[in-house]
């Protein structure tokens, strides 16, 4: 493997990690708003907040899945290969 390939793979790994971090961050915001709304269902601000971040979450997941493979099984997009088991599992240490 030459040096340039190493750099490219490093960049892809960094992008994957950053996008996953963004999904974890926004996913957390969605969960937090969800729990708040369960006990404050009439809070219009919280509902707006939930809708905004839920939309953003779905965009980020679609972006991630198109580049790096499925996050849920419904994100499997390949006709030729079973991609569900290709990427690291969440409990594996990041390289």
């Amino acid at each position, binding site marked *: 493997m030459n040096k340039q390939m190493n750099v490219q793979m490093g960049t892809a790994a960094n992008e994957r990690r950053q996008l*996953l971090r963004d999904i*974890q961050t926004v*996913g*957390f915001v969605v969960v937090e708003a969800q*729990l708040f709304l369960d006990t404050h269902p009439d809070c219009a601000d919280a509902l707006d907040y939930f809708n905004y971040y839920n939309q953003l979450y779905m965009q980020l997941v679609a972006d991630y899945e198109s580049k790096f493979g499925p*996050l*849920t*099984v419904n994100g499997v997009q390949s006709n030729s290969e079973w991609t569900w088991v290709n*990427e690291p599992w969440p*409990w594996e240490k990041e390289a």
Partner: protein
Amino acid sequence: MWNYDRKLQYPVNIKKPDARAAKVIITQYGGPDGELAASLRYLSQRYSVPYRDVAGVLTDIGTEELAHMEMISAMVYQLTKGLSIEEIKREGFDTYFVDHTTGIYPIAASGAPFTAAYFQSKGDIITDLHEDMAAEQKARTTYDNILMLVDDPDIIDPIRFLRQREIVHFQRFGEALERTKDRLDCKNFYAFNPEFGSK
């Protein structure tokens, strides 16, 4: 039903194996105030609740607890991966190793295996919500104790996240209890079980 997301709720990346830390952190998997007991508690209690919003709180927090169980399991996995036999013996992990090698199995720090006796599902939402609030406080204390026993920032960071979630869940259960009490008939001043035989 549930779907699996191929991500942890919060990142776990522990670079240095530490069998001693794994021995205490595993208690939040299979111990008396651990995430497995929390999840089973809320997900069992929710069915008979007569109020949909309260059943929602139990469903959503019970689901988040499954994600916390996965984080704790990932921590124990990473803390025990690559240990040498010398480290396993020196750090007192041999008593776990002999039964489970470095597989992940739900036990308390004392070695007691997980048991459903750690939690109740009483069929009385007022009683259950009081237990749930206490459970969140007990888990928070356990995380406080873990934080006194570890010094690796890679361990401290996810443990602090989990500790904060106990505080938020305590708050939500408190609100669920208030919303439950708001609905009680004025004749039910002493808050007898609204799930059974009160009408």
